[in-house]
């Protein structure tokens, strides 16, 4: 059981190629981290997996537990178990957080089935408490006027409520203060287990002290160029990306 990305090529609709033959396999029960320079294609990868309409896949496949999801609508992918914590969560004016999450859960039920309200609020409050999100946030519009850190916490809250089988966290640590980082990481760790595979995108090794990955990848120029254990993150932290880029160039000209 895994999320397999096989030789994925993709570009902005009618534009330039961003992913160039990307391979990755995220097994259930494991946590993979991706690091990589700005503009290397990390967010694009996550959005393409989720089915964002701005991009077109020109080659390769994405298999979720063996099913190719590339032809599916974004909402069908979500209901199939895929979750994306956005790097830049969108504000939805007028729609309260509680109603939004409730509607998302309701969308997972069979026609005619109704979400049980008391149970729902029980779960919601429990997860909010864990993430130390004040109760007042249930009534506020989704992400509207939230601080950067509050938005990230809210993404993790939605993930906790929707219980995906594969979750991509795109820079969930950026914008979090040190205390918040610990709380959010604890929230993510609480969700770790044999039933979920995670892909954590980050720029900072620090996050990986709290969410310890099984594997670390480096993404450069739309491809995974290096894969190793957690120690790779330390190496990047001290040396940056230039040495990898240099090695790549050397290999290309050789």
């Amino acid at each position, binding site marked *: 059981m895994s999320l397999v990305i096989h030789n994925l090529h993709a570009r902005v609709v009618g534009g330039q190629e961003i992913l160039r033959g990307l391979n990755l396999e995220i097994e259930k029960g494991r946590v993979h981290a991706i690091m990589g320079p700005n503009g290397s294609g990390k967010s694009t990868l996550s959005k393409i997996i989720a089915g964002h309409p701005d991009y077109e896949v020109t080659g390769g496949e994405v298999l979720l537990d063996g099913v190719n999801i590339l032809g599916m*609508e974004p*909402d069908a992918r979500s209901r199939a178990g895929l979750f*994306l914590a*956005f790097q830049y969560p*969108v504000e939805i004016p*007028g*729609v309260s957080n509680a109603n939004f*999450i409730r*509607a998302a859960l309701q969308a997972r039920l069979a026609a005619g089935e109704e979400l049980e309200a008391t149970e729902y609020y029980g779960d919601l409050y429990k997860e909010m408490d864990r993430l130390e999100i004040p109760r007042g946030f249930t009534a506020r*519009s989704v992400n509207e006027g939230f601080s950067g850190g509050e938005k990230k916490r809210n993404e993790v809250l939605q993930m906790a409520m929707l219980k995906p089988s594969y979750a991509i966290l795109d820079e969930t640590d950026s914008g979090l203060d040190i205390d918040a980082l610990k709380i959010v990481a604890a929230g993510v760790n609480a969700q770790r287990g044999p039933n979920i595979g995670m892909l954590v995108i980050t720029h900072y090794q620090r996050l990986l002290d709290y969410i310890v990955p099984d594997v670390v990848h480096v993404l450069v120029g739309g491809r995974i160029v290096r894969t190793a254990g957690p120690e790779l993150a330390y190496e990047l932290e001290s040396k940056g990306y230039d040495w990898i880029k240099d090695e790549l160039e050397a290999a290309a000209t050789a």
Partner: protein
Amino acid sequence: MSTETISQLDVDRTRGDFHYPEQHTFDAGVGLSHATIDYIADVKNEPDWIREFRHKALDVFESKPMPTNWASKDLDNIHFDKIRYYLANAQRPTRSWDEVPDDVKRTFERLGIPEQERKFLAGVEAQFDSEAVYSNMKKALGDQGVIFVGSTDGLKDHPEIFRKWFGKVIPTGDNKFSALNSAVFSGGSFIYVPPGVKLKHPLQAYFRINAENFGQFERTLIIADEGSEVMYMEGCTAPKFETATLHSAVVELVALKGAKIQYVTVQNWSANVFNLVTKRAVAHEEAEVKWIDCNIGSRLTMKYPGVVLKGRKARGEVLSIALANNGQHQDTGAKMIHAADETTSNVISKSISIGEGRASYRGQVHIPKHLKGCKNNTECDALLINSTSRTDTYPAITVRGSGNSVQHEASVSQVSAEQIFYMQQRGLSEAQAMSLSVNGFVNDLVREFPMEYSVELKRLIDLEMEGSVG
């Protein structure tokens, strides 16, 4: 993702889109002439003053040009000579649901009436094509002197009240369509609430068009006597026909000293209906009139509910929601005519345009120089779902004199592809995502609406969104 799909697909108006074969006892035939009017007046056995009123109105209608110089050119596609102006089975509605003819009964039962009557209404009137087929009110209200009947019965049984107020708030010549209605009107409600009587539950009328190539011209007159209170709700549907159908109503409200009237409209016309309605109220001293107007569906709606604030401290309010889907134009607004000191008015309009749907707001606020202490607040908010939508605002505010205050705010917002994607990523379909945004957009306004009405409105919005993405 959203734009192409939205702009291509048509609306499915499931609940109202059915009709039964017609067999009318009374049929004025196709086209409009003085003979049509004589037919209607004969069949209805009307007094001479009404017959004359109708004939004069037809002359006014014919002499007035179409308002295409400022309004939609689509008005030219109404073929008055191809429309049927009067279709009815009987002249008097029954008071017992059992006596309603079977096919008509089936129609209204499918639409949820008389279920709702049992649940929360003080009285119901159901109009099928030109005339009311059913009319009933809780007995206790009748004992208090409340009158709630069709306009035909109102004219026959209560001429002293009817004649005093009829055509006074909206004169025949107000506009081309009020003249048309004045010539051929039939059906609609007549309500009188005696002094001090406060109705706890709403009165409801249901207007149903069943026949093709038909024009429905109901005429409603509500008089709330001093210190009384009444809420009236109207619902409208029609099946989807190939040809255009015309709905042109005139609604006049009179709120006497200290009276309160709330008039709620749930309009869900199919996309072939021209809906050209004139609605106006006169509010006397310390009276309050609130129009809650929700326009969903139709091909073209032109409707600007108004309040003439005639007495000191009178209050007028228009809360409106217009949803313009593909191929639809909602041209709506409000008129507030201040005619006494310390009068206040409030207009909140929310419009939603989807695909090529077009929403226009036309507002008129008039406060003459000699008045003191008048206030108006106007807010118009537009929500655009995709870039081809159009929204226009034409506020006309004439305020003279320094002792008066006006406040005007307008906003336009978009449901962006990013918002839809975000919601879809959480598992909501595109239609559900749009419904959620639209409901969010109208939410603060809907909170002011009566409960039963907000539930119905939410259901209609969901249906409309499903239809728009197919």
